[in-house]
């Protein structure tokens, strides 16, 4: 029997900050201090209402309560799992049965929430696991790293600060020819060429200063004594205390890259050379000059002692002709070459070293490149020589093949140009000849006819016939003249012979001349001023006027008037020839000044080549003038010649 009431005991427990509850024999919670209420998340009002057992997860702990209640035997530090609003707590508890002075038996439970504690234990375990994992990972990583190091194409070598090799991968064995066993514990100078030993000092000094060395291009020595181009990247190795204890070195074999770089550089310089050469040869259209330029430049480029360019050119008569150009010190050689070798060259375009040696030259290096035409024939040869051995290589050969192609193109162009020039000269010659040959018989024919005409007495019935014959002769003459004019315009312009003359007088003469032959039309002439003096070719301009007058008559068969006038306009002398014929449609107006154009619908009745206006336009153009037409169908046409005064 206790002298305290439960009330007294509970007042004391209120002060305790470990959770304490009391439960009765049915399991009802009759008391909970504030810590316990917080733990169970219940209110004071719940006391005497809520049962404790639902908070217990494990039934055996319930049994322990019963045990305590029934037997009065206390338990200490029993483990139990509690469930509060789905949250699980791990607790230890002690139970104690107390009967107060009123004989009321209550079990007091003292809890310790060990959830947080357990979690802490788990964390430790987790950390342990993590460390273990890290350890495995680290081992794996090391293994992987080792695998990478060993399978790397780059040699990876480490050394200590004394330069002693501490690791040596597979690539290093291949690159430098030493096995790992051979290299380990040796000094790094094993793979450094003697002349580069001072590099190591510099490298070690940099490493000691924690500096990295990246892509340092140098040479290293192989076991077999060969030197290779390598690119080195070197970093310091630092121990856990931060001390530099050595260096790791990655070496990449860059021999092939170097080779490629050199190739690229050579290629670039070849392209540049070819460009320069192309420019050089395209500047000339003379075969001899091209040959000389090519042989001079190419001999210089490949450093030849001498060079010969032989080329079989075609002249205008298609005859082959062998031409030579020489470069370098060849004076003595040239003579013997000409006498001993040139004949072979002529026959076969093939020259070999024996021939040259026979020519009395001391030649050790020799290079010969054929020049091949577009049609695939060998048309020439580039030959180079040097008194020293091994002066020429494959690169020279490749470059010269390019140059030979360039040279051939330039030479073919020059040949074509030569051909065109010669054809043009022939054409001019032909025009001159045709002019002479055609005009000479017309001259005597015309003279004879005029002689007869002059001898005839007035009223002779044959006079009409003779006049017709004369007219036809004049027509023939002017047709021949026109033909030759066109041929000359095609090759340039009509040659003009200029002088100062009076347009009015010239036009008057032309009008008179045409009026004399044309009885069908009346030609009127009017000039604003008595004279207009211009500087030009009188005969050619008269040809224009005559052409315009003839056209005016020809194309106005229904009319009987042609008006000719001369006036001044915008400091130009303007000559107008107006007819009252069929007129010219706007579409036709665009064509009438072109070659061989004739008004289509009427051409069958009107003779001529249709080149009169074409020639006239060329003549007027050459005088910086303007030949134009103004016309409407059915209302005739006005042709205007405007020549600057």
């Amino acid at each position: 029997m206790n002298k305290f009431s439960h009330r007294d005991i509970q007042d004391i427990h209120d002060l305790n900050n470990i959770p304490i509850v009391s439960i009765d024999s049915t399991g009802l919670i009759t008391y909970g201090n504030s810590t316990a209420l917080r733990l169970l998340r219940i209110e004071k009002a719940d006391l005497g209402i809520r049962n404790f057992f639902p908070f217990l997860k494990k039934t055996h702990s319930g049994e322990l309560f019963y045990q305590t209640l029934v037997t009065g035997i206390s338990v200490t530090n029993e483990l139990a799992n509690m469930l509060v609003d789905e949250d699980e707590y791990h607790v230890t508890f002690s139970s104690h049965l107390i009967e107060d002075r009123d004989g009321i038996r209550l079990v007091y439970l003292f809890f310790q929430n060990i959830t947080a504690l357990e979690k802490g234990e788990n964390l430790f375990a987790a950390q342990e696991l993590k460390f273990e994992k890290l350890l495995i990972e680290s081992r794996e990583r090391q293994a992987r790293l080792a695998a990478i190091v060993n399978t790397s194409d780059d040699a990876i070598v480490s050394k200590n600060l004394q330069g002693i090799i501490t690791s040596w991968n597979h690539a290093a064995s291949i690159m430098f020819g030493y096995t790992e066993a051979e290299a380990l514990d040796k000094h790094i100078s094993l793979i450094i060429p003697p002349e580069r030993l001072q590099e190591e000092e510099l490298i070690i000094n940099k490493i000691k200063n924690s500096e990295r060395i990246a892509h340092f291009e140098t040479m290293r020595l192989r076991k077999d004594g060969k030197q290779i181009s390598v690119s080195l990247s070197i970093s310091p190795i630092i121990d856990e205390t931060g001390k530099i204890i050595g260096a790791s070195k990655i070496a990449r074999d860059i021999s092939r890259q170097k080779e490629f770089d050199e190739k690229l550089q050579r290629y670039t310089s070849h392209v540049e050379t070819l460009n320069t050469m192309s420019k050089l040869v395209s500047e000339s259209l003379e075969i001899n000059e091209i040959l000389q330029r090519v042989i001079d430049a190419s001999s210089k480029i490949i450093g030849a002692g001498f060079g010969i360019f032989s080329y079989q050119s075609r002249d205008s008569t298609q005859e082959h002709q062998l031409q030579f150009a020489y470069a370098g010190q060849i004076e003595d050689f040239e003579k013997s070459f000409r006498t001993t070798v040139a004949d072979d060259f002529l026959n076969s375009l093939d020259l070999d070293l024996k021939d040259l040696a026979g020519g009395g030259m001391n030649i050790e290096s020799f290079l010969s490149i054929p020049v091949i035409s577009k049609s695939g024939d060998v048309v020439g040869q580039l030959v180079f020589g040097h008194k020293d051995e091994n002066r020429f290589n494959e690169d020279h050969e490749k470059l010269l093949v390019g140059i030979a192609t360039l040279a051939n193109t330039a030479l073919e162009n020059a040949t074509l140009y030569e051909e065109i020039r010669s054809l043009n000269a022939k054409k001019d010659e032909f025009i001159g000849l045709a002019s002479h040959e055609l005009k000479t018989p017309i001259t005597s024919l015309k003279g004879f006819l005029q002689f007869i005409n002059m001898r005839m007495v007035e009223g002779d019935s044959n006079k009409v016939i003779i006049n017709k014959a004369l007219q036809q002769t004049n027509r023939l003459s002017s047709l021949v003249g026109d033909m030759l004019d066109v041929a000359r315009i095609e090759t340039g312009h009509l040659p003009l012979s200029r002088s100062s003359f009076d347009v009015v007088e010239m036009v008057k003469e032309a009008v008179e001349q045409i009026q004399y032959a044309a009885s069908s039309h009346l030609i009127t002439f009017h000039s604003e001023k008595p004279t207009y003096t211009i500087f030009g070719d009188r005969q050619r301009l008269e040809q224009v006027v005559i052409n315009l007058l003839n056209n005016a008559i020809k194309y106005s068969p229904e009319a009987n008037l042609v008006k000719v006038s001369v006036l001044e306009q915008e400091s130009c002398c303007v000559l107008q020839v107006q007819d009252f014929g069929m007129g010219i449609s706007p579409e036709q107006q665009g064509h009438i000044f072109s070659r061989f154009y004739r008004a289509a619908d009427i051409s069958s009745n009107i003779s001529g080549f249709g080149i009169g206006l074409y020639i006239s336009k060329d003549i007027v153009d050459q005088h910086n003038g303007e030949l134009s037409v103004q016309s409407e169908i059915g209302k005739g046409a006005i042709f205007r010649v405007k020549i600057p005064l």
Partner: protein
Amino acid sequence: MRRKIFICDDDKNIVEMLEMVLGEFTEATIISETDSRNAFARLAIENPDILLVDISMPIVSGDQLIRQIRDDPSISPMFIICMSANLMGEQIAINAGADVYLAKPFDMSQLLSLIAGAAQTG
């Protein structure tokens, strides 16, 4: 005294035609030569008043002949009419020293008036 006209052209037809025309329509004595190589020697002997000469002749061209005449002080001056079917004839003729140029084919009336004019000035 009758005037002398010397015709030099390698084309026989033209020479024949000119002989007929000038013989009929002028008062002059007409002399002709178709081989220009002989022309200079004959000119030196004949001493004509007027020379009617073609340009395009083989071996000795008309302009060469004109220069030879103009350059030789022993040959007395004559009126030279140069005729040609050559496209550049006028320039060649005047540069050589001809007085007048006639482009072939020409009108007989033109030739006759030139000769008449030369007679007045000469």
